[in-house]
């Protein structure tokens, strides 16, 4: 089996996110500045993308949210995906207020069994090396 594209390092903004997956923690950042108008930061960065503050904190998500939108890929030429059969990519809105790209898994027919707005919960897909894992979601 060809491995999916893996996060590549050094890449200091996202490395803490992927390090946390080794303990199966889904993490996101918040801005420490009290008067910042949108304190949730995602994807990870060393600064707040709303106010520019360099003071940010890491938090662990409960891994629960809703499907914001999705698409089901019927044709991928990437070696890791081309023989997978139809699979769903999605943006999931986590309850903590961040939106992430992911896959919706553990459904029989991704076109009909997934709905925009449905509740989903986190599952981890190991990457075979016993280290980082990919956060994915399944119907809650």
């Amino acid at each position, binding site marked *: 089996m060809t491995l999916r*594209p893996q*996060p590549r390092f050094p890449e200091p903004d*996202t490395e803490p996110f992927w390090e946390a997956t080794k303990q199966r923690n889904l993490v996101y950042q918040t801005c420490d500045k009290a008067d910042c108008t949108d304190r949730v930061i995602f994807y990870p960065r060393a600064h707040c993308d709303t106010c520019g503050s360099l003071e940010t904190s890491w938090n662990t998500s409960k891994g629960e949210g809703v499907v914001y939108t*999705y*698409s089901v890929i019927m044709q991928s030429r990437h070696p890791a995906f081309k023989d997978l059969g139809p699979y769903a*990519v999605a943006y999931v809105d986590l309850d903590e207020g961040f939106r992430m*790209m992911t896959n919706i898994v553990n459904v029989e027919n991704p076109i009909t069994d997934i709905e925009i707005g449905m509740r989903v919960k986190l599952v981890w897909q190991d990457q075979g090396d016993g280290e980082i894992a990919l956060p994915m979601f399944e119907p809650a």
Partner: protein
Amino acid sequence: MAQTREAAIVGIHEYPLRVAPGVSALQIKAASASKALEDAGLSWQDVDAVYDNGSHQNIGGLGISEYLGLNPRLIDNTSVGGTSYEFQAHHAATMIAAGKANVALLTYGSTSHSDRRAIGTAGATGQGSPTPFNNMEDPWGMTLISGYGMVKARHMHQYGTTNEQFAEISVATRYHAMRNPEAVKAMTDLEFVGVNEITTQDVLDSRMIAWPLHLLECCMVSDGGGAVIIASKEVARNCKKPPVWIIGGAEATKYRENGGDITVSAGGQSGPRAFEDAGVTPDEIDVLMAYDSFSITVMCMIEDLGFCKKGEGGDYVSQGILKFDQKGGPALNTDGGGLSSNHPGERGIFLLLEAARQLRGESNSQVENAKLAVAVGNGGQLGARHATSPTILAAD
């Protein structure tokens, strides 16, 4: 704001082939520059400003100036994907109006088809330096087409837009393509199944590439290119063809945002600004050249530029107004678009070219008495980071 007519498109050329083996992107650029200058009645050394997005054979404005043999006093390397050329037209018109240059050259050349680039379905390459967004997107196997599929899915959910409505965009575009000999040759050379007019049912019956996007809602991957010459009003008055005035332009960006509305493109910001800049309104527009990477891209451009209210694009495109010989709204993508004529990856220049042809009265699907056109490009990926820029053009 009062409308100004300080800069105009005075020369155009669209490279005629969509399958061009053995030709380089640079050669397509040079050939197109030569023909566009000839079209304008200007000479090679009249060019004093060079615009390049550096996307193919990646040499940028310095390299292309040397290659062409030009010594510009102004170089602009703006690179924002498929709408680079609307950004560049906006910059060129502004700099010409400020007296910084007189004759600007914009070129495009690409050999995406001959290079066998699977732009829409390849997924992540894993090449180049890692970026935060690569690391937060690539592992889940999103293809470019599925990124647009996610926008279409949300549009259908949020507004009740139907597949039949989206298909109207493909049907009107193909109608125009069949009247354009270069588009017919393109579809033939690229071995389209059925080089003919299509129905909404044909679109719905075509295979699903990334649900909910069908094959006939997706652009081709071709070779090709072209060139645009933009000149000051003084130069424009002495050119061979009537000037096509650049009367307005604007730029904006948008990203995947926590809590954001993915169905609203950056055109929601740049559209109103461009119309204000031009001093005209959407209901005055005769021709709409809207970047048709996919059906959903056009739907968003129509709504976000204000041709109808947000979310009402489905009804808008279904009222029988998109074809050049129908009344009631601007004709859409009268050259056959990226869906059915020309899409080597960054289509923005072709939007300017066909808009200029319409305003000169030279289109294969000529809108009677066309006075105003919009060329609106969308670069990057609609569902993620992207840029949208409308250029508003007026006949002399």
